[in-house]
């Protein structure tokens, strides 16, 4: 999705991939993911220049990813910088470590923060 990606934020590439995955998913898949996650995540990402961009991952009402603040309202707002988000999405860093080291700030329904790792990772192996 061209409107999700923002060249000033390299990590937004991953968000646009996520957006594409959601749009390609079937209704049943989307519904299942929504039921499991049941939350609207607002990502406030700050890039190297200090600019802040906001994206929303809606896994509560519609099952999509878009640029801009949450409509109607986010359940949890996560503040992190571009590099941190990239590492999270790549799996190099997990939510807990990011939080512990202060690279991830959480506001709102904190329990949803623990779900972020799952949301970013599609197609996990099963134990």
């Amino acid at each position: 999705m061209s409107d999700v990606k923002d060249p000033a934020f390299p990590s937004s590439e991953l968000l646009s991939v996520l957006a594409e995955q959601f749009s390609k998913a079937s209704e049943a898949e989307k519904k299942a993911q929504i039921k499991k996650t049941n939350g609207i995540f607002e990502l406030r990402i700050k890039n190297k220049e200090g600019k802040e961009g906001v994206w929303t991952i809606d896994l509560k009402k519609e099952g999509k990813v878009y640029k801009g603040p949450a409509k109607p309202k986010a359940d949890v707002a996560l503040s992190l910088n571009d590099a941190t988000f990239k590492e999270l999405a790549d799996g190099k860093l997990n939510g807990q470590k990011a939080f512990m080291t202060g690279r991830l700030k959480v506001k709102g329904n904190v329990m949803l923060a623990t779900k972020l790792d799952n949301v970013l990772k599609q197609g996990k192996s099963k134990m």
Partner: protein
Amino acid sequence: MAFQAMMSGGADCSTSANPLSQMLKHTEQDRSLQRDRMVPGAPGASLRHLPSTSSAAPLDARDRTLADQFFQAGPGPSASPSPFALESMRRELDGIGAGPAPRAGDWAGDFTRAGSPWTAAQTPGLTPQEREAMERSFQEAKLHEAHHVAQHQSAWRADFLQNQQHITPATAAGPHSAAFEQAFNRSFNWDQHFTMHNAKGKGKARLVELDDSKWEEQFAQFTSTAEPAAVSASATRIAAVDEDKALEAAFKDALKKEGLDVEKDPDYLAEFENVWNTLRQEGEASNPNLADWEREFSGEMARVREDMEDGLGRVGEDGFPRLGEYRFELNNPYLSHPDPLTEGHRLLRTGGALSEAALAFEAAAQREPSNAEAWLWLGNTRAMDEKEEAAIRALERCLREDEGKLEALISLAVSYTNEGYDTAATSTLERWITRKYPTLAKAPSAAPPSASLNPWASHERVTDIFLSVARAQSTGELDPDVQVGLGVLSYSTGNYDQARDCFAAALGARPEDWLLWNRLGATLANGGKPEEAIDAYRKALELRPTFTRAIYNLGVSCLNIGCYQEAAEHLLAAISLHQTGDGQAVNESQSLWQTLRRTFFAMDRQDLAALAVPGSSVEEFRKHGFDF
């Protein structure tokens, strides 16, 4: 002094450097007594850890009269007409900000005010160990209480009323009593408050959420209103007030720094709604500020309520999925079998198809719904067959029939983790370890960090428990399940290296356990080592060739390394294992079809992706050149 202690934290602080959470953690301890009263879910369990009457601070005559006075008195001699001192609350509100900030009424503040002497360890009463014990038993009780709400409401109320006497002596002793009692009378009505909480009928866990931050403020503001009355008090009293003010200031700062993030938690809101409605009725005329956030609040409430009533499939506030009852297959040939449970085991032993074995176990469960063993094996088989939701339903039912079935707890924790219900997995593992190692699990450890700000607080706590048990076993006999539990905990936070070590250790003790080989494989795969993962899956399949889940995982790993053809073939093989009979099964595996579709997209074959929907026949795909 107490304030300093709180701020510097000490050895038992959480890893978070947040002063707010440290404060909250500290003050959480104080409420342990209160919480024990309110948790009837395991009244025996929680009360067991309470100090018996004989060991509590001895009630002297003066304290007893004070206690009686305080509990029987209605609104006391002060000027405020309302039992809830709304104007001071509103002042607090204005001071804090415009966010929706429901205050649970002064009772919480008052109780905490009562708690403050404990914090400072200034009064006799519970020793820190006893407090810890209560805290821990409360935590355990909290885990159990999710399903025990309704029938215990009256029980805990009676319990609480009986035990009120215990609370007062500790807090009313000495020069504090007069001012305390007076202030308490002025702005509190215990009965009414607890009735309200009862009426709401949510899990008692709500009460814990309530406590987290609001009462601190109320306590602070309450202290400021109580100050005039305390002028004649002793030096200790004055010192306490100073501490309180400093606390209040620091707390406000910390809150502002955090941006009041706890405000928006629907858990708090759910509980506060009821309290607030009652407050509104009894309170003063409406104030424009009140109306604003009230509106926002009821908007939030409507949303939360709607979510909660949505029923099946939604995640509850406690992090557990609401999947409902198990759904049996129709046309089950094993229903007429004389002993389906044994037959199911035989099928598993002889390497039969997992779907067949599952049908046999379903028959067993249908015939004997109270047989936890049948449900356990039904759940395990469904999990192996890559049908996670069915597995979760069966395992949850198993635990409802027999909450002591340890193997079910482990399997369920694994299933929860696979589906992303991390909080539920952590709670389930905690249940397991406290059941299996009650002495070790209850060992005095670091005070539980505040759950409200650190999303991973309970996870860390449970991991610590597992680690201490594992360490205790490092010299003697290792329990592979402890390693499995640790592995699952590490896996859920993405700590795949540690998880791998745990599963490898478990495999050392159980080298023929195909489930463990698959778990090791999944850990390696998610940890970014697909080739090693594939080796582990192959080992699992050597031990059990019909292990559908391992075949699915093979497909996922092949997909990740770019071997799309192979990936599709593995997935199709897994699906074909499912399609034993005619027609679509009740318990379909969404994950198999979804991953197959992703594979086809990766191959740029939209046509095949369109065909890959639940209910299609796999035979179709043979025509397209897939060999399975």
